[in-house]
């Protein structure tokens, strides 16, 4: 069934095939006729059998048989008679499976029959059939599916089924289906805490042992690696959701304005927060895994300030699943309050049954943090954008005075709780790393990729203090493997580049000392000091570890190879973004930016927007970008203004949701198109600077 070369059809076959086709057509017509006329006589049913015997994929014939079966069985009362009817039907399925063991229709028909529960199921017959079929092709996933169905239906204990997977793996470990079923069964057994499966650690140690036997025997066999990947995920993903970062962080002081004198005196102690001018307080929470269920009751706020009643937590995510790592809310300050007084806001997330991760675990690491707000009624309203923001990539960063950006350590609220268990996890990982380092890899991509993943899982456990040096060592080794992989396996180049990019980000941002080299407080003339991060020219392809960048107000990602900006949506403080000279290929790839409320300056110049006739982002990411009600409204509006919606639909959706003051987009194929400028002007009324020119 697998690994057999395809043989070209012989000319003799063609003649036979056309005869067969004629017969099939004839049968099909008759069966359909019977179906429409609801003829359920023996002869009519016999015809459908003849059809299915030749072509088990004729789904209508199966459905016809189901109707006929229901119709005929109604009139029967004798259990023996019912049994013989069911038996006949089961036999038809068997005949069809002999013709094609992978017929969806046939397998489904059998399940349907069993689910009618008209006669007791002959388990010997069912499992016998499966044994026969899985002997012919041990990797027939239909067979495995049916086996899972049957085991559940018959109440076969998972332990027994687990043994069966081991038998099959023993016969031939190149069997993804068996490994897969094993992972399902083990998960169930561990959740149920069945006897002998109380200790996750023991079970996973044994499973690692088992799978490495297979991996070392034949490293070029994929199935074992997939199972290894599952195991790795089991021990490296967190059991429970945890909050890993927030904005504002604990102890932060936000200010709606700033006092120039204080800046000059190097005594700047508060962070300028753009949104405070509009009496809005943003809060961003970042979890270690996607969660859902943040609401007014699961996240408690306490302050002298009064907020609008309706506190709405939004998931900052590109998917509509409801789960997200990153959640935000904008608090509307409702009451009058005196200037130059500081108000504290307390945020606490108690153990909550509302907040759950995808795996169903509840949030149970209570967190509490406080920040203060200073509302200064500003007489002199600073216009940040009376001059275009100039990006000076070549210029080295100048730190403004001695004031640092947000003290980095403060960003970590839960300073990585070192649990007892994680020691065990770390040992397992180190053990595996040592093993695979020894495996002569012959440039096997699986070995390198697995090593990289193991190293990164180890790195992720080293999160504070001195162990950060180790983290960087792990990162460096992983980077080496990823770079090898890019050359070794060019067809998955982009995946490896993204991984590498993420590791690179980790390395640059994991400790303050390194990170500081890329950070500064930027002061534009006549402007507020902004926290500035410069990550240009690093061949990044995507953004990783966004939770460490949530305080960034000016971000320079120019001269990289960025293809996706997913992750930037967490940067709710971002005012200016430079992603010029990258590989952004469409507006859909920029969708995360539409989630950033106060983004004012965007440099998109010298990318590839409009250069590709097919927008692959749309297919790769399941972006709901184009499927929203607002989209329709925007399109209608544009149509009225004679804008070609079909051509510019993504540009319309993108610009519509931004309130930019400054946009640079030259050097993109789309920018040279006629009407594009008009389109932009139409869509962004707030725009002041377009491609370096003042808009008037």
């Amino acid at each position, binding site marked *: 069934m697998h690994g057999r070369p395809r043989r070209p059809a012989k000319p003799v076959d063609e003649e036979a095939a056309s005869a067969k086709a004629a017969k099939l057509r004839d049968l099909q017509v008759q069966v359909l006729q019977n179906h429409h006329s609801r003829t359920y006589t023996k002869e009519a049913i016999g015809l459908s059998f003849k059809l299915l015997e030749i072509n088990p994929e004729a789904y209508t014939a199966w459905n016809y048989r189901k109707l006929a079966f229901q119709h005929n069985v109604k009139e029967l009362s004798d259990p023996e008679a019912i049994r013989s009817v069911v038996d006949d039907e089961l036999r038809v399925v068997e005949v069809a499976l002999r013709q094609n063991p992978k017929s969806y229709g046939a397998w489904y028909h059998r399940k349907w029959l069993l689910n009618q529960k008209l006669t007791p199921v002959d388990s010997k017959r069912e499992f016998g059939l499966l044994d026969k079929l899985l002997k012919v092709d041990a990797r027939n996933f239909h067979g495995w599916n049916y086996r899972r169905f049957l085991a559940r239906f018959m109440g076969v204990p998972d332990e027994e089924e687990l043994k069966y997977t081991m038998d099959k793996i*023993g*016969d*031939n*470990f*190149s069997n993804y289906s068996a490994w897969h079923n094993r992972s399902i069964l083990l998960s169930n057994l561990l959740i149920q805490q069945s006897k002998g499966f109380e200790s996750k650690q023991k079970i996973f140690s044994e499973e690692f042992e088992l799978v*490495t*036997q*297979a991996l*070392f*025997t*034949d*490293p070029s066999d994929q199935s074992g690696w997939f199972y290894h990947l599952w195991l790795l995920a089991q021990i490296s993903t967190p059991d429970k959701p945890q909050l890993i970062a927030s904005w504002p962080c604990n102890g932060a002081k936000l200010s709606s304005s700033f006092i120039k004198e204080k800046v000059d005196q190097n005594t700047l102690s508060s962070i300028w927060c753009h949104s405070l001018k509009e009496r809005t307080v943003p809060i961003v929470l970042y979890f270690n895994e996607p969660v859902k269920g943040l609401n007014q009751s699961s996240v408690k706020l306490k302050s002298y300030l009064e907020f609008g009643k309706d506190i709405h937590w939004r998931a900052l995510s590109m998917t509509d699943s409801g789960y997200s790592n990153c959640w935000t809310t904008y608090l509307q300050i409702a009451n009058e309050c005196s200037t130059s007084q500081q108000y504290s806001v307390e945020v606490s997330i108690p153990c909550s049954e509302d907040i759950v991760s995808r795996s169903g675990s509840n949030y149970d690491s209570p967190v509490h943090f406080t920040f203060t707000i200073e509302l200064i009624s500003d007489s002199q309203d600073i216009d940040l954008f009376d001059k275009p923001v100039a990006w000076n990539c070549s210029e080295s960063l100048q730190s403004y005075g001695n004031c640092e950006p947000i003290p980095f350590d403060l960003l970590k609220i839960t300073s990585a709780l070192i649990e007892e268990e994680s020691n065990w996890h770390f040992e397992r990982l180190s053990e595996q790393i040592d*093993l695979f380092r*020894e*495996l*002569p890899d012959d440039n096997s991509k699986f070995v390198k990729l697995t090593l990289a993943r193991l190293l990164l899982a180890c790195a992720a456990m080293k999160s504070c203090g001195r162990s950060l040096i180790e983290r960087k060592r792990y990162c460096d080794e992983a980077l080496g493997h990823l770079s090898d992989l890019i050359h070794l396996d060019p067809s998955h180049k982009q995946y490896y580049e993204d991984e590498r990019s993420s590791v690179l980000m980790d390395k640059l941002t994991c400790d303050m000392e390194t990170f500081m080299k890329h950070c500064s407080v930027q002061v534009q003339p006549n402007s507020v000091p902004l926290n500035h991060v410069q990550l240009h020219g690093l061949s990044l392809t995507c953004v990783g570890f966004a939770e460490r960048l949530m305080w960034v107000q000016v971000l320079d990602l120019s001269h990289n190879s960025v293809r996706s900006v997913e992750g930037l949506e967490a940067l709710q403080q971002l005012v200016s973004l430079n992603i010029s000279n990258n590989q952004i290929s469409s507006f859909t790839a920029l969708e995360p930016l539409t989630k950033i409320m106060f983004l004012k300056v965007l440099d998109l110049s010298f990318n590839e927007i409009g250069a590709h006739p097919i927008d692959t982002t749309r297919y790769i990411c399941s972006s709901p970008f184009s499927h929203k009600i607002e989209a329709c409204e925007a399109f209608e509006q544009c149509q009225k203004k004679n804008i070609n919606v079909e051509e510019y639909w993504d540009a319309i959706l993108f610009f519509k949701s931004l309130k930019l003051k400054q946009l640079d987009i030259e050097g993109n194929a789309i920018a040279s198109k006629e009407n594009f400028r008009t389109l932009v002007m139409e869509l962004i009324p707030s725009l002041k600077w377009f491609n370096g020119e003042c808009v008037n």
Partner: protein
Amino acid sequence: MADEPAAAGAGQDYPTIDPTSFDVVLCGTGLPESVLAAACAAAGKTVLHVDPSPFYGSLYSSIPLPSLSSFLSPDPSTPSSTAAAAAASGSHTAVDLHRRGVYSEVETSGAVPEPARRFTVDLVGPRVMYCADEAVDLLLRSGGSHHVEFKSVDGGSLLYWEGSLYPVPDSKQTIFKDTTLKLLEKNVLYRFLKLVQDHIAATSGAGDAAGIISEEDLDLPFVKFLNQQKLSPKMRAVVLYAIAMADYDQDGPDPCEKLITTREGIQTIALYSSSVGRFANAEGAFIYPMYGHGELPQAFCRCAAVKGALYVLRMPVAALLMDEEKKHSVGARLASGQDILCKQLIIDPSYKIPTLDVPFDESDSNCPRKVARGICIFNKSVKQDASNVLVVFPPKCMVMLFLLVDPVSILDLALEEQQVATVRLLQLSSNLAVTYRKANLTCRFMAYLSTPCTDASTGKHCIKKAMDALFSPLDSDGSQGQLATTSGSTGDVKPTLIWSCVYVQEITQGTSSSLLSCPMPDENLDYRNILESTKKLFTDIYPDEEFLPKKSAPVHDDEDSDSGE
């Protein structure tokens, strides 16, 4: 199945054979003679095939246990030819023929379990056929497969290593399941098997040409190649002795002369791997003929008979008929006194060849090759849950202690001598119908052992050593399993030896001249070499004829299906 050998020389009534002239006369129904008879008959020659014994097979036969000792050491007083050399008749001279002793050092111990007649023993053991080897093809081609059934050696192979039996990992799955191998050893071993598979696939045109092993490597000694592939000593032993079936020490400090090359090693592995899975009902690479190896010559004889060859058993050849110059044989005088003329005479290797003017049997003079063989019957399998298994004792795996008495100092000197050659053991259970299984009684197993040797006593010693390693001797009082009480766990108890026989057999190669002699059973596990020389003999006689062409098979040949079970 051999018949009961009738008391020899009991004044038989020999039949008269008509006609008196044949293209080929063969004496002795060993496998090579029988194959030749079938081939000659298939080529349309007139064939007379006689055998002095009352059963088929000669040195290749399977005989009932009670007849074994008389076969191995025949009574010398029995006259081998009743009709003494009569006067030369006509234009040719008669030269008397005599049998010679092929076996020596015969030693049996233990009591033959009853009923002894139900045990049939092979004289050529231990021997199997690779599912994909020439012998099987010959059987299929000649139609001989209709007369013999096979069972697979399903228990796989075991290597005797560091005092215990170790299942030979010979496939991806067995390597995976092996619990004694280190992870890296698994990797290295499978990598090696893959390399060989790729090479085999590439040379047969099915795989990627990049998989071909370079000529340079193919000419290397196999052990060097294995070293290059970083195989550990144990893995080398597995590949060399249990898969490539090397006979002599390949891995010693001073290399022996009989180093197999990578090419040869890979050839055997290729045969091995193409054998696995050739027949759906054969589990491993090897098959064994039900009712013993004696079935094989008989099957070929039947093929020959179908094609018109004439068979006479219990008919010794008394003398050769030579032409005037005593250079060429022109026929044979049978024990009945009848003279048969023939163009080609082929004589069983157990006949002493009279000194002729033609150069003959040069190997006989100096140090002939020998093979020590053993047969034993014991009470339980050497490997749990396995009935038919092959056990390989690689060279040097057993320490040989020789007790020498120094005549001068009168001190006992214990000398260690290395076991230089591989000992192979084939265990068969009652499902092959060679051993008897009585209801409600302990199952009996039978094993054959062999090792090549130059010195008979060394060879014999090796066989005994191997038996000692696997079996515990039967107590004097005859109770079995005495060790069970002392060692505690019954699972570790060695099988108890009930009966054993050790003997040494000479090996002569087939020779071709006007008087042909076929090869004797060799030290190998399979028939490849024997059949090769048989084929060569045939082409020497009939250079223009095809050796058992496919069309020679009867029409009802239904492919491979029936050779399995």
